[in-house]
């Protein structure tokens, strides 16, 4: 079956003063229709850049240097970033919600102005219809008395409310895919839960697919069907949600799981991953996780960066020389 979106070997580099920064270096993933997937990784691992590359929203000094993004059977990277075709996809077929609700809305435009413009652009609505639809959308995402508030400015809303508005905006044109880039990071726990609930409910309603980007495995646990773990610009493990949680194969995934509060770890101390993510400008040619890896072997040091390899379990792949399930399965309880 044809994938709705398939990203193949995507490479996005930044030409910085310190040298070439490989923010995304050979990332491949896919999404099927009405599927929810998760992309998880620490801050700075390249999640956002990956998604922005899909949207062709990489600004200088960044550049997509390789790979394909096949959407509905066509490589949309071939489109000009600001050409007609790409613009039709952006916001129309693939929408994106950003991680900072406080700054992602234009402070000098009313909600109506900001919501209506996509509607008018992609769905060719006129002003009145767009306004009606915008009110409708705000109601759907749970803004109280939307008729009254649609002419308010963003600063008159709380962070959670603004993210609801962002969701409404993202879904306004009925996109095939909604990319939610850490939509809840800046919010308190209760609001996070509500928003995730809302988002999944909404994509179901709109029959869209959803890519949840987060650094918190816990966030995607309930909703995502499949999960991609990213580290230093690369996918290091992928598989179904179940597989990943039950049989994590990559030391980094294990570390992530240990740092996430879970029902079965209640009462246990959370263990953050020691050390810092590597500097992406001068990457070693061996495994990028090595400096922080509790499982490293001599082989890891002497061999090049491992490739993703299939491991038991449906679609489960991991980028590691060591077969962790064999070595240790006490780490994850």
């Amino acid at each position, binding site marked *: 079956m044809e994938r709705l979106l398939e990203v193949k070997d995507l490479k996005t580099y930044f030409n910085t003063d310190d040298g070439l920064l490989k923010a995304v270096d050979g990332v491949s993933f896919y999404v099927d229709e009405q599927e929810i997937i998760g992309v998880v990784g620490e801050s700075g691992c390249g999640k956002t850049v990956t998604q922005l590359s899909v*949207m062709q*929203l990489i*600004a*200088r000094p960044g550049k997509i240097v390789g790979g394909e993004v096949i959407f509905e059977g066509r490589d949309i990277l071939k489109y000009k970033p*600001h050409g007609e075709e*790409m*613009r*039709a*996809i*952006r*916001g*129309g077929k693939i*929408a*994106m919600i*950003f991680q*900072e609700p406080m*700054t*992602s*809305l*234009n*402070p*000098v*435009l009313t909600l109506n*102005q900001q919501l209506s*413009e*996509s509607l008018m*652009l*992609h769905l060719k609505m006129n002003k009145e219809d767009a306004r009606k639809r915008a009110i409708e959308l705000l109601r759907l995402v749970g803004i109280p008395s939307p008729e009254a508030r649609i002419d308010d*400015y963003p*600063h008159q809303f709380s962070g959670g409310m603004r993210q609801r508005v*962002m969701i409404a*905006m993202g879904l306004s044109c009925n996109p095939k895919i909604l990319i939610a880039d850490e939509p809840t990071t800046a919010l308190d726990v209760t609001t996070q839960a509500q928003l995730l609930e809302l988002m999944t409910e909404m994509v179901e309603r709109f029959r869209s697919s959803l890519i949840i980007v987060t650094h918190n495995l816990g966030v995607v646990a309930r909703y995502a069907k499949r999960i991609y773990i990213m580290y230093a610009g690369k996918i290091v493990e992928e598989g179904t949600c179940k597989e990943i949680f039950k049989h994590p194969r990559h030391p980094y995934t294990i570390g992530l799981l240990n740092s996430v509060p879970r029902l079965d770890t209640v009462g246990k101390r959370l263990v953050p991953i020691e050390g810092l993510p590597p500097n992406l400008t001068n990457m070693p040619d061996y495994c990028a996780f090595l400096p922080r890896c509790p499982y490293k072997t001599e082989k890891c040091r002497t061999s090049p960066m491992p490739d993703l390899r299939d491991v038991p379990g449906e679609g489960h792949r991991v980028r590691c020389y060591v077969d962790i399930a064999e070595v240790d399965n006490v780490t994850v309880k």
Partner: protein
Amino acid sequence: MLSYIVRRLLWGLVIIWLVTLIVFFVIRLLPGDPLLIYLAQNQDINSMPREQIDALYREYGLDKPILVQYANWVFNLLRGDLGLSITYRQNVGKLMLERLPVTLHVGMTGFIVSLVPGVLVGLIAAMRRASWIDNVVTIISYTGIAIPVFWLAYILIYVFGLRLKWLPIAGYVSPFEDFWLSTKHLIMPVICISLPGIAATARQMRSSVLEIASQDYVRTAWSKGLAEKAVVCRHILKNSLIPIITLLGMRIGFIFGGSVIVENIFAIPGMGRLLVGSIFAQDYVVIQANALIMAVIIILSNLLVDISYGWFDPRIRYD
């Protein structure tokens, strides 16, 4: 909003009062005596009998203690009387009515002319960052800021007045008298007044746009699939104009400052020229009135600027 304006106006009155106070006393602290200069100008010093000279001092109230002079001046001001000019021997209000429209005509034209191209040029430079347009704009704006006004004025006069003979070199004609000729007279002074403004505005606009363009909400706008024009016009422009407005508030002051040089070079009968003459003649009354009017205009325009912030930036509240 209304209470805000009223409060600001009251503050403005306080500031104006301070300005009058400072100007009044500072010019009187300077050595020299305006009547003496006036009499010397007319070579009357040794023909006018002492009593007559004393009578002149009395006429201007210059024989009174300085505090009384101040009180008289303020009292007359409150009645709308700006006083009698010492050199012109005419009511200063009348003089100002001759001069102010001229300066406003030249200055406001310069102001508007500096505004629109400044904003446009800055915007284009920012949108085409690091392109040749950007480089040219940067060079020209640095030049525009660095170039002294009088130098620019003489280059313009040399090129357009002397060599090409396209424009009259000096003088002023009221637009109600002969609009076309008036405009021709206006071109060079307006360029001189506005070029530094264009340059400063363009530079400010460029950095402002660059800053706004990297804001998250602009990324949001792009992610909606909007065309560049829509992103720029709807999402970037208005936001990046906010810092420009501050600049504009200050430019009003510059216009009066710049008019002093420009009006002298191009022989324009405005406030600036009057001020220069009055300073040489130490005509207290005219200098005071000049300072007063400038203070009022600057305070009002700053108020206008602050109010217009509200229009540009809904986050600002007036209370």
